[in-house]
């Protein structure tokens, strides 16, 4: 009798266990499964915000967001280990070639603008704008700029204190590429910190400071800092939502992307996630502190995704200060 009871209990337990869990269908009958995202730490805050909101509506979909960096993320993406790659730059030629070689197609979708503000102490009386050449003179490796007078004759001979994000930061890569021509090419003796809040505190506390970080951090601390106008060849332009949006704040503004695996896009949960992303991007991007794209561009991106248009429109092109609409509308 004990054996019978045991067998009966075991059978019931097994049946119950078999009913729960299992595959892409959740118990509510809605979406289930996992969406694997990895890549840029710059894009991460936006993707994470979208994942949070999406998770509220679709409780059975698990969205994991990693921060291996744009390059590291692409490596995983090209091994089909991630469904979506966050990228703070367009895909490189070598990466796109590799994708073709392994048979992975990707859908390139811009999601926001990233702008860098160059800042000085709010009471700094003589700095109003820099040309890109001056920025290069200050930040190039082996730079001999130690005082303000080394940058522009006529400025005081006080020592300049430089601050910036550390070498792991996407912002750092992007700034050095825009100013010095190649990512990670930079002088070594500046005060580095991965934490932008530390940089804000440092710059606002030091009369001779000169620093750079993402526009979002400047926008949050406008009263404590002074943004330097940047002359990219067409006159000095101040960083603001508008100038970053319309590409006139150049070369320190650029689009950031997500790349979606074409095969993964056919999965219901991935499709729903990307749709949700592009639909709510404007709101969430602003909330996180980045600069949203014009509505027209989000529409173009949605069309691109719906039509499963693969390949990169930005490949090999300059992404600094371009108008995305033109590039996207210009076709593949």
């Amino acid at each position: 009798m004990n054996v019978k009871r045991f067998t009966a209990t075991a059978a019931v337990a097994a049946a119950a266990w078999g009913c729960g869990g299992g595959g892409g269908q959740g118990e509510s009958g809605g979406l289930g499964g996992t969406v694997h995202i990895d890549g840029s730490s710059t894009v991460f805050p936006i993707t994470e915000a979208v994942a949070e909101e999406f998770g509220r509506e679709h409780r059975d979909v698990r969205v994991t967001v990693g921060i291996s960096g744009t390059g590291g993320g692409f490596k995983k993406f090209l091994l089909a280990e991630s469904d979506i790659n966050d990228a703070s730059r367009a895909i490189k030629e070598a990466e796109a070639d590799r994708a073709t070689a392994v048979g992975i197609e990707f859908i390139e979708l811009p999601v926001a603008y990233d702008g860098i503000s160059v800042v000085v102490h709010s009471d700094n009386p003589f700095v109003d704008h820099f040309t890109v050449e001056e920025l290069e003179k200050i930040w190039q490796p082996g730079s001999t700029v130690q005082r303000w007078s080394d940058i522009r004759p006529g400025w005081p001979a006080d020592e300049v204190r430089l601050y910036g994000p550390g070498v792991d930061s996407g912002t750092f890569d992007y700034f050095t590429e825009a100013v010095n021509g190649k990512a990670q090419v930079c002088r070594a003796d500046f005060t580095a910190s991965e934490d932008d809040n530390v940089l804000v505190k440092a710059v606002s506390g030091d009369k001779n400071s000169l620093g750079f970080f993402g526009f979002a951090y400047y926008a949050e601390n406008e009263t404590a800092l002074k943004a330097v106008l940047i002359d990219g060849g067409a006159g000095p332009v101040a960083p603001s939502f508008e100038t970053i949006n319309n590409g006139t704040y150049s070369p320190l503004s650029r689009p950031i992307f997500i790349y979606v695996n074409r095969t993964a896009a056919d999965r219901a949960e991935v499709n729903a996630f990307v749709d949700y992303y592009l639909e709510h991007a404007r709101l969430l991007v602003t909330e996180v502190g980045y600069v949203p794209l014009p509505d027209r561009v989000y529409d173009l991106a949605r069309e691109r995704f719906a039509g499963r248009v693969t390949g990169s429109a930005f490949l090999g092109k300059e992404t600094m200060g371009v108008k995305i609409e033109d590039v996207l509308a210009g076709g593949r």
Partner: protein
Amino acid sequence: MHFGLAGAARRRWKEGAIQSALFVCAVVSVVTTVGIVIILGKESFGFFRHVSPAEFLFGTRWTPLLEPRSFGVLPLLCGTLLVVAGSSLIAIPIGLVSAIYLGEYASDRIRRIVKPVLEVLAGIPTVVYGYFAVSFITPMLMKAIPATQVFNAASASIVVGIMILPMVASLCDDALRAVPQSLRQAAFALGATKYEVSTRIVVPGALSGVIGSFVLAVSRAVGETMAVTLAAGATPRMTLNPLESIQTMTSYIVQVSLGDTPAGTVEYQTIFAVGALLFAVTLAANLGAHRVLRRFREVYE
């Protein structure tokens, strides 16, 4: 009789098993150390195939993550030594003097309060010390000396000094207490003052233990990671100015391992090369300590 023999065999087997188990536990530490040395050696070997040891040990520019790449480790070594020197300057005098006070001068009541407080200081997590340095010590320094940067070696040194102070104090205390009372009493009998007894009899009599405590504290300061990572900065530079931001070997390792450096690259291997150097420095310090201890060792009957 049958019973007795079976019991003895079982007891022997049990004793043998216990001995083996204890041996395994003792061997675990050896095996772990050997494992660490092997991994450090393997990856460093890979690193030294790309970068010559001469360039690594004698170069003065450390930019493995920036273009153009340089792999001269001296700035990191300099940063570590700067922090170690600063913290020793704080911990060693104060620690030794506290130990002398607690051992020779303090009343029981004071001892009962101060000793536990020292233990508490020793137990505070290092990351808390780092945060304390950034949010309390650095602003204070910046107000006192305007030339202080937001990350600086001085702040880290002060905090590491406070951290290793209890180690110096309690080890010196133990060493001083090992000096037999007869020596003190003989000195008093000859008319020496308490100060003379403490400085001319007791401390020299406990010299090996005292120096041993200094070396242990210095080893701890060399390996200190979180406090310097938070407070000292990430700018590798060869400087003796404690008000500037520097980078130590330990905080460099933290920076790279928390970043997105892909495994297998030269940049990744720098972690192991710097780790091997750190290991070598600590090992040298400990071996030196053994030598010194043996030389100054006083054996009291």
